[in-house]
């Protein structure tokens, strides 16, 4: 395990140097097609490492649980640091308050993905039914996290405020820039129910959505019940809280996430993996 701690230490050091030289990680760089290229390189790199495992001891070692321990430990410590320090867009504690763009954090997680993928590949290619739980757990986490990370730059999240009676096609992004998602929303009716203490119980918007191709969809959007139209998911986001049920507008969040299928695939593999973890992977009871 000493090797693992040294490699982790090396990654931290390399990360700190990268942070000094190149600044924080700019995730928007990974927008399509860069993410696809990175993914191909990653898969190819793992394939090469696997092929050379007999010749390069390090690659063989990376598949073993003794490589996983230091890696997971580094990841846990950095994640705990992230939980202890306030995470803000800018300012705060230098480097550590922007953990998600901090090179050492990302390098350690990337290393975790590489060794987990190698271990999964190793078990996949020695195919036996009893390897399924191991493969589901290790491949599932890689598929989910790699897809979520690389797909992040392709995700679009916009807010659209729609007044009843006037269809809207413009929305704003996180930076407040006006964007056109390629669909228009018409608000027919906003409804709201309150609890006796006047806190909101349910709010919903009866809407029609028109796409550029001339398609129109009618539906009700409420919290926890988004509407899916043309690759976008439309979420009930807010309303005029000063007027409550009398609100004349409704605010929607529009999310387009082209990589979501792969994230879900990874998540479902992990859920199946967790079922196997308790049924087949736990050691047999000893009395």
């Amino acid at each position, binding site marked *: 395990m000493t090797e693992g701690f040294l490699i982790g230490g090396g990654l931290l050091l390399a990360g700190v140097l990268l942070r000094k030289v190149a600044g924080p990680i700019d995730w928007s760089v990974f927008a399509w097609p860069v993410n696809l290229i990175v993914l191909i390189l990653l898969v190819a790199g793992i394939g090469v490492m696997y092929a050379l495992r007999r010749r390069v001891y390090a690659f063989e070692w990376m598949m073993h649980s003794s490589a*996983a321990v230091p890696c997971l430990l580094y990841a*846990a410590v950095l994640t705990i640091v992230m939980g*202890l320090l*306030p995470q803000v867009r800018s300012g705060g504690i230098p480097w550590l308050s922007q953990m*998600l763009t901090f090179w050492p954090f990302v390098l350690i997680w990337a290393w975790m993905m590489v060794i987990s993928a190698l271990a999964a590949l190793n078990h996949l290619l020695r195919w036996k039914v009893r390897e399924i739980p191991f493969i589901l757990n290790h491949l599932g986490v890689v598929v989910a996290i790699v897809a979520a990370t690389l797909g992040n730059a392709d995700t679009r999240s916009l807010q659209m405020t729609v007044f009843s009676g006037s269809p809207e096609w413009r929305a704003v992004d996180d930076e407040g820039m006006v964007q056109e998602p390629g669909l228009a929303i018409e608000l027919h009716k906003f409804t709201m129910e309150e609890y006796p203490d006047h806190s909101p*119980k349910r709010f919903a918007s009866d809407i029609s959505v028109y796409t550029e191709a001339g398609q129109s969809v009618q539906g009700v959007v409420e*919290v*926890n019940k988004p509407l899916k139209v043309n690759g976008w998911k439309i979420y009930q986001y807010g309303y005029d809280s000063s007027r409550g049920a009398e609100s004349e507008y409704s605010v929607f969040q529009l999310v387009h996430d082209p990589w979501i299928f792969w994230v879900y695939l990874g*998540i479902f593999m992990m859920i199946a993996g967790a079922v196997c973890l308790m049924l087949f992977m736990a050691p047999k009871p000893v009395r």
Partner: protein
Amino acid sequence: MMSWNLFILFALVAVALWAFGAFFAWKERPRLVYLFTLAGILVFFAFIVGMWITLERPPMRTMGETRLWYSFFLPVAGIIVYSRWRYKWILSFSTLLALVFICVNLFKPEIHSKSLMPALQSPWFAPHVIVYMFSYAMLGAATIMAVYMLLRKGNTTAAEINLTDNLVYVGLAFLTFGMLFGALWAKEAWGTYWAWDPKETWAAATWLCYLVYIHLRKARPAEWQDACVLLLVSFVCLQICWWGINYLPSARGLSVHTY
């Protein structure tokens, strides 16, 4: 109509039944153990169901309500462990721990019957909380085992280590369910499955800590004492994730999970 005023009644009956169950475990009368423990679980569950119906929502909203589930799952975890390992003391421990959480609920309620905001009205709400509470109970039992083994150092048996491993495997599986159900729910409610909200960050840290345990046990089976220390650290993370986060300056006012 169920109400918190009746809690003390149900809790006393349940704890008494669990105590009898624990007593018969020492006397090696398994049938009476199952009878009393399951009866206690049933009485306690009746209160939860009653609250569910009266509140017209799952009783999982407040800290007090989550503690209710925790006290419920401790004897459940205890009887499962008993049925497979026949430890005489496990039910005494689970009863004592359940009693602690019941007392917290009696003396520091935090149970003001809050209404359920729209974000929490989802079919994911109940499974998300229930699997987490079951996981916390399992991992709590694993922590007790770790303390017990660390204190007795030389006298630890293979069966005790085996039990601890099993508790962690089942606990981690349910921790994974809780986390991923939360992600699937978040996608439906907020449009993002993972936002590194402070609660999520601590959930990830906790999950990683238990993964270290599992891999360490595989890589270095002889070093079970290190693994036990790790379980203590992991349980601290879990507590921060569950309620400690409400007191952390880094999370205050930032988390969408503060209820």
